[in-house]
């Protein structure tokens, strides 16, 4: 093993852990802010550290501190299986976290003739990894619900378990049609396949080639992550809080965070399988590396435009109404952030100038393209997370029998039908 390979493996692992863990507070904040914006409210925007409120994201950290310091209440009627009761939220959290590890963040790097995967777990059977580890998460829900010795918790756990059974089939079958189409179980190879173009104009994304399977995949993943409209397992109008009724403080927070990690993982899987992963449409890694100078010049023009629009938006929105006398330190924060963003932009410009004109090298080009792909991946991931959140605040919850009917009567036969057609076309046409 060379130094480069160890370095890349470490960086990818840190990147994976950060992307899975650091997005939790951001997602909680996004959920609350987006919900309030949809409902014409303002949302949490007051909490700050030394006047820096960053749009209110500090609130999530304050909430974590509060949950950590809360009394560790423990229901006294639970006599047997205490350790499993405590462990259950951890199982849910860790399963969602581990499932995220198989997602590629950038294309395979070629350094000194060595192929290095930018994946937290450098495996080439990511689909199997996701399907097997992702399904373990529901065990935590079932254990937690069953060992609570509480009828609502038990009902919630039963609902979660039966829902996973009915949607896992549709999920597996729709993923299978993608496996047939791309002829691989490796997430990275799937992304590379999708960076082709279709009929010369469309990007060959899964959503355009397999619209039916894509929709089934997205719906099944919504159900798998217990997100609306499939939140029957914690339907507060029927069964209090479902499986987490007896869980308090940090135990509850583990379930809560596990839900967000699962949502993040589901988004990552959806964009990797269906929306071209870390690639921009019409642009493949090879194309970027061949036309590296054009790419960097475009980027050097794009970064200031993006920063200009963002700073303009921030100056417009990070201030209070004119009728108010005090701005609560928002002007100062805007000034500091504007300076920081301009300096960051200058730094990026210098870096791009360096790798493309002053000291052009293969290594520099490879790394620049990889970093660009990671950033593209994060932006796509966040966009899909926002889609998850907006859907939650758009749709009401399905009734439990409707959930089961949708899974067994509609999605499963459709997924089977789609798999059948895909198999005929793949074998017949020899795609």
């Amino acid at each position, binding site marked *: 093993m060379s130094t480069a390979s160890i370095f890349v493996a470490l960086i990818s692992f840190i990147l994976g852990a950060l992307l899975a863990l650091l997005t939790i507070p951001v997602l909680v904040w996004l959920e609350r802010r*987006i919900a309030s*914006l*949809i*409902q*014409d*409210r*303002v949302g949490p925007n007051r909490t700050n550290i030394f006047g820096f409120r960053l749009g209110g994201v500090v609130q999530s950290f304050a909430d974590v501190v509060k949950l950590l310091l809360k009394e560790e209440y423990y229901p006294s009627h639970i006599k047997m299986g205490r350790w499993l009761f405590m462990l259950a939220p951890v199982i849910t959290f860790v399963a969602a976290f581990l499932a995220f590890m198989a997602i590629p963040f950038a294309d395979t790097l070629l350094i000194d003739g060595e192929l290095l995967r930018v994946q937290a777990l450098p495996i080439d059977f990511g689909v199997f990894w996701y399907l097997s580890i992702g399904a373990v998460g529901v065990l935590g829900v079932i254990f937690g619900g069953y060992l609570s010795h509480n009828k609502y918790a038990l009902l919630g756990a039963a609902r979660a378990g039966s829902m996973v059974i009915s949607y896992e089939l549709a999920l597996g079958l729709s993923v299978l049609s993608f496996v047939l189409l791309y002829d691989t179980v490796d997430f990275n190879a799937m992304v590379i396949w999708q960076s082709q173009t279709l009929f010369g104009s469309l990007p060959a994304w899964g959503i355009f080639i397999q619209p039916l399977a894509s*929709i089934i995949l997205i719906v099944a993943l919504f159900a798998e992550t217990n997100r609306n409209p499939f939140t029957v397992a914690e339907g507060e109008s029927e069964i209090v809080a479902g499986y987490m009724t007896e869980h308090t403080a940090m135990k509850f927070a583990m379930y809560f965070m596990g839900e967000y990690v699962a949502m993040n993982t589901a988004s990552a899987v959806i964009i990797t399988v269906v929306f071209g992963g870390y690639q921009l449409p019409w642009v493949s890694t090879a194309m970027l590396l061949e036309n590296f100078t054009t790419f960097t010049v475009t980027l050097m023009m794009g970064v200031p435009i993006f920063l200009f629009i963002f700073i303009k*938006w921030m100056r*417009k*929105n990070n*201030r*209070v*109404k004119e*009728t*108010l*006398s*005090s701005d*609560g330190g928002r002007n100062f924060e805007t000034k500091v952030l504007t300076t920081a963003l301009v300096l960051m932009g200058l730094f990026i410009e210098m870096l791009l100038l360096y790798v493309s004109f002053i000291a052009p090298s293969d290594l520099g080009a490879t790394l620049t393209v990889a970093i660009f792909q990671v950033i593209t991946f994060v932006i796509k991931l966040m966009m899909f997370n926002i889609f998850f959140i*907006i*859907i939650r*605040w*758009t*749709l009401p919850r399905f009734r439990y029998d409707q959930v089961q009917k949708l899974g067994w009567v509609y999605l499963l036969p459709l997924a089977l039908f789609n798999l059948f057609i895909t198999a005929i076309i793949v074998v017949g046409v020899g795609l």
Partner: protein
Amino acid sequence: MSHNIKITARPERTLKHNLYLPAIYAGFKVTFKHFFTNLNDINAVETLRYPEEQPTDISSRYRGLHRLTHREDGTEACVACFMCATACPSNCIFIEAQEREDGVDEKRPKSFFIDTLECVFCGYCVEACPCDAIRMDTGIFSLTGDKREDFVMDKEMLLSHKGAFGEEVSCARG
């Protein structure tokens, strides 16, 4: 079956309904429009930025914090008749009566306490008062304190509150 019962036919569920997706798209369009408009201009959101902005729509009928009214000569209008304490559903008014020496009236309260932590702000005391001596027209809607004792209003505090809507003295006592 009575002839008054009118049976409404259920709307027919077409393929468009059963697909769910058109309805989801329509709903998504509405929520996304709200999200995008408010994201573009957060200050257009019609929300009171409390506490920097204070409510301006408190009317004279709003039941705020209590006050004891005065007579024209500046003394308290209360005659310690205990009607308010009797009417109070949460038993939060504590009065001690005293003979009034100055000849204006016969009785006056020696002490008058309202425990606002017990009070449910129902306004029955105001309705019961025969002398228009207790009112809830101060317009004070938020009361803060560091300890429980801060919320027990005594006679001096209740007399010091000003009416927010013009009527300063008791209408019943000259």
